[in-house]
């Protein structure tokens, strides 16, 4: 009796704690446009975009274990949906367009999900890379998407960064909460079991392919929505800019640097990588990429589970010098 009461109390206390963490985080982000200049706020918008993209990508790469090198495909689909809807004067209502962008991205993921998710590991990664480049070339050559001219989206003046900022704050927190919920549910458990041992998962009765397609679609939805937001924030969509390798690789970097397979990992990774880039860019004109690459290599050598993964003791620190002496080169 006593234990059951303790248990109920413990869970509700935990849920309250996490809830209060979220509340504190939201409260921290709300006053930013008022205390910082709108330039810094714009950088924060960029940061939050990357945070939400990384959290979505983490669902696929961290929890499901399928790395993709071409997630910018969905970013581009989301952005282009918004741009084309605005350009062809179909719909001007922003939330609807953004949501439709995300839904189209998810739809496309569902369509190509079945053939692609039979692939594993590097095959899947390169397949998605090929997909993003195919989209890039197709969109550059199609008159429907205005080829290389790019699509301009008119900006409502007078301008204030507040609506954009609060929209991305809402989106980011929505995606984080959704990801958290998914991860802590049976779905998340299924994902993790597929990542760790697909055969055992199959034996337990989990339909591995179906769950992988589902994970793929959910991550595509998140990235597509952010793409749609990007179209409005940037007011210009160009195939080279939205289907670029840079975006795909930055998502990958941020997730794994921060710690794949954790909720906080992609957030911390995005924040650290972006802050180092932006602060480096401001103070060191040209050497900041060297700094970034050194940081990536050194930190990742010592903390292969990512920053959050290692700091929360899910994976150990490794001492690279000890590794040199131990001479192990991975296992089969």
């Amino acid at each position: 009796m006593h234990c059951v009461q303790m248990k109920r109390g413990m869970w509700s206390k935990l849920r309250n704690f996490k809830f209060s963490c979220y509340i504190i985080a939201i409260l921290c982000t709300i006053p930013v446009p008022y205390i910082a200049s709108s330039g810094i706020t714009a950088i924060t918008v960029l940061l939050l975009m990357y945070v939400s993209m990384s959290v979505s990508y983490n669902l696929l790469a961290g929890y499901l274990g399928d790395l993709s090198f071409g997630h910018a495909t969905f970013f581009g689909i989301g952005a282009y949906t918004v741009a084309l809807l605005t350009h062809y004067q179909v719909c001007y209502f922003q939330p609807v367009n953004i949501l439709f962008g995300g839904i189209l991205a998810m739809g496309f993921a569902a369509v190509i999900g079945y053939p692609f998710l039979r692939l594993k590991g590097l095959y899947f990664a390169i397949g998605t890379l090929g997909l993003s480049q195919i989209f890039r070339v197709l969109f550059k050559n199609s008159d429907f998407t205005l080829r290389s001219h790019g699509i301009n989206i008119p900006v409502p003046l007078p301008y204030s960064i507040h609506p954009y900022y609060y929209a991305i704050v809402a989106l980011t927190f929505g995606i984080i909460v959704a990801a958290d919920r998914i991860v802590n549910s049976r779905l998340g458990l299924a994902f993790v079991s597929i990542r760790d041992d697909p055969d055992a998962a199959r034996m337990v009765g989990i339909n591995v392919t179906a769950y992988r397609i589902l994970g793929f679609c959910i991550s595509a939805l998140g990235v597509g929505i952010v793409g749609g937001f990007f179209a409005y924030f940037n007011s210009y969509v160009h195939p080279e800019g939205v289907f670029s390798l840079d975006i795909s690789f930055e998502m990958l970097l941020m997730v794994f640097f921060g710690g794949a397979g954790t909720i906080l990992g992609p957030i911390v990774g995005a924040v650290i990588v972006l802050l180092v880039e932006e602060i480096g860019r401001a103070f060191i004109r040209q050497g900041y990429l060297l700094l970034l690459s050194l940081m990536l290599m050194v930190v990742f050598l010592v903390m292969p589970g990512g920053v959050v993964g290692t700091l929360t003791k899910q994976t150990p620190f490794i001492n690279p010098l000890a590794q040199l002496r131990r001479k192990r080169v991975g296992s089969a």
Partner: protein
Amino acid sequence: MSEVEKAKITRRKYLKYGGAVVAVGVAAAAGYGIYEATKPPVKKEIVIGGTLPLTGICAMDGQRILRATELAVNRINEEGGVLGKKLRLIVYDDTMAAEKIGPLYEKLIATDKVDILITPYGAPMAFPALTVCEKYDKIMIAGFVASTSPAQRFGGKNGFFAHCMPRPTYSSFYYSIFTDMLNDFDKWNYKKEFTLDKTVASINENQLWGIEQHEIWKPMAEKQGWNMVLDEFVDITAVEFSSTLAKIKLTKPFLILAEFFFFRCVILLKQMIEQGVSAPFVVLGEAGTSYDWIDPEKGVGPVGNGIFTINLFPKDYRGGDSEYLRAKYKELYGTIPSAHEVTGYSSIEIIRDAVEKAGSLESDALRKVLLTEEFDTCFTRVKFDKEGCNTLWEPTAGQWQNNVIETVWPPKRATAKPIYPYSP
């Protein structure tokens, strides 16, 4: 483990999570705070800002523009500045990543308190930057942005002024200047047995400037009687042109018109020579943007002589600070400046003249001055029309002869006769 201990352990884990979140947030806030506290631009300076690709794909061009821009700013500061204030230049490296341009420009305007902006490299990067300028009502002077579509939306009274952006209504432009030159063939043809054959093979890059100029040029040329025997677009990642060159061999045009980035012109010429593809007139549009062209270590070497190219910085042009630019650049960097440097320097000249004539940094005053006054820069004389395009630029056709670019057309600007037909 008892329930109580388990609760403590899991609470500790969540405290760590929460602590991490708060720590990151505090660090970020501290970083921003320190940044804003240590970089307030002194209002005794006029701040000019922009982003350029200093690393990544177009690093060469971005670095050259930066060199010349810094040269201009240093010179103006040595001479006492503008309106008694010194100029300060803030340039960020944007690595040609289009998604970061918007926030970077907002940071430049709102945090670094930039007064006047310069464009990034190329129109696809300029569009987001121009949107930000429009949002904040700032003026932007173009560097190396030569497409006309930004001007249609953002130009003139909307704050964008591009002096290296020729308009077909005012003059020849990058594509049309050679067809215009050949339209006048009988006037300057000194080989009487040679006849004009209006067939052209056009190879372009599939990027915004390329397709835009092509769309303007093609109907014009066809109306003038040109027969487009080949009309190819090449992706910007391409390095192998053998199939396109094979098609040129089959169609045997009189004029080959290829408008590529500089290094692709280098590759194209080498492959043309190898495959034995030639035409009486070979135009490689950007072969004149850098004096590396006839350098065997960086370009094609002496075989590049005989190629026609657009001459963006004629060697006899004396307007503005061009003499100073040539001398100082040679002293500092050992080479002759060419197109990218010149556009960088001239944008600063325009800024200086506009601010001095307007007497203030207010956008409205600057706009009025920019729309009405005439400027003299090291690149060209400038008079903006209401869309911010330059009505006074006279592009010239050039040809590489004896390792120098000679102007060959129009006749009143010509420094040498054109050498034709082309033979490598």
